[in-house]
């Protein structure tokens, strides 16, 4: 039994080490994150030719724009990204794991203006660490990552339980392990009580 549990613990770690590294990077980056008013973003503005059919609905325009931008990671196009300004003009509030893009249209000139705020690498990793199977994406890469990350999340739980079992079955008297568990639990409990 011990050998089987150790195998499963090891295999889970080997299959999901990249995801665990992603969690670690997300956490470490989160700890070092700047205050909200100091977070800069790389902003890129550009214009692309874009002509929508005259009778196209807002949704049809949005989907053509997303396709023109190659933003498959932002698909399917949800209703909440289709917006209108105070003058009733259509604009799109698009988002994918690489950052947000605001798209406005100049029908007369036949162009669309794109303002892109590309996430820094840490923000990208942070977005990915939070992506689970609850996400439904039309991009196979995004959906694949979502499923794999869901699998990794459950593997982490399995590794916690199996790791605890392996310790208690093999080295329960390990003093340093006992002290580490006591210390970590005490720190968490103290912080919980003070914060609560």
């Amino acid at each position, binding site marked *: 039994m011990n050998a089987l549990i150790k195998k499963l613990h*090891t*295999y889970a*770690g*080997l*299959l*999901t*080490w*990249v*995801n*665990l*590294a*992603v*969690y*670690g*990077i997300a*956490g*470490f980056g*989160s*700890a*070092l994150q*700047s*205050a909200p008013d100091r977070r800069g973003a790389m902003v890129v503005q550009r214009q692309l030719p874009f002509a929508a059919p005259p009778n196209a609905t807002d949704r049809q325009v949005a989907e053509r724009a997303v396709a023109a931008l*190659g933003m498959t*990671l932002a698909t399917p196009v949800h209703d909440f990204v289709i917006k209108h300004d105070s003058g009733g003009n259509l604009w799109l509030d698009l988002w*994918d794991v*690489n950052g947000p893009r605001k798209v406005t249209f100049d029908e007369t000139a036949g162009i669309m203006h794109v303002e892109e705020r590309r996430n820094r*690498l840490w923000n990208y990793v942070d977005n*990915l660490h939070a992506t*689970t*199977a*609850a996400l439904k994406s039309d991009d196979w*890469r*995004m959906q*694949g*990552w979502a499923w*794999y*990350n*869901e699998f990794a*999340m459950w593997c*982490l*739980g399995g590794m*916690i339980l199996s*790791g*605890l079992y392996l310790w208690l079955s093999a*080295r329960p008297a*390990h003093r*340093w*392990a*006992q*002290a*580490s*568990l006591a210390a*970590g*639990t005490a720190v*968490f*409990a103290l*912080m*919980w009580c003070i*914060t*609560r």
Partner: protein
Amino acid sequence: MFTKLRAIHLCTAMFSLVFLVMYGVSAVQMGHTKWFTMKPAVTTRDLPVTPGLTNARDAARELMVRHHLRGELQSVDVRAAELRFRIVRPGTVYEAAYTPASGMARVKTNTAGFMGMLNRIHHVNGLWHEWMLLNVWGALVGLISMGLFLLGATGLYLWFKNRRERLIGVVLLAIGTMAPLGLLISMRLS
């Protein structure tokens, strides 16, 4: 060497255990919101504050000192006849509406349950907070993250030293590297 690294792997895991359980359980909650009830307990009360204050920060500070509301000031909204703001800490949100004319603050307290508290701790970030405890939480997040790296590195070593598991381990490691890393890189280059 093997014995030392095994001990490091074990002790790092033991120290991080409760934190990892917190992250894991809250991750499941966020990924499967319908599985859990997250309604906070809500109470409302009126608290006296010095009248005539024009700055939300001053009103918040007085609520913190005089009425022991703990947390960090957020979401200040200045209106014609009142100042609205939040005092927030993991698990508790005070929504305050202070009226300078009367010197009263209506405070709505939202207290999260156990799962809500886990959720909020999961989201703690940064070392820049005015409320010191949030910085301590932030430092712990950084520490546990380093623990994850250490667990991964020592775990890989411990596996490699087990000759019987090397062949199947290489296959699983290849899958566990190429699949997620390939997706990661491909999406970033989009």
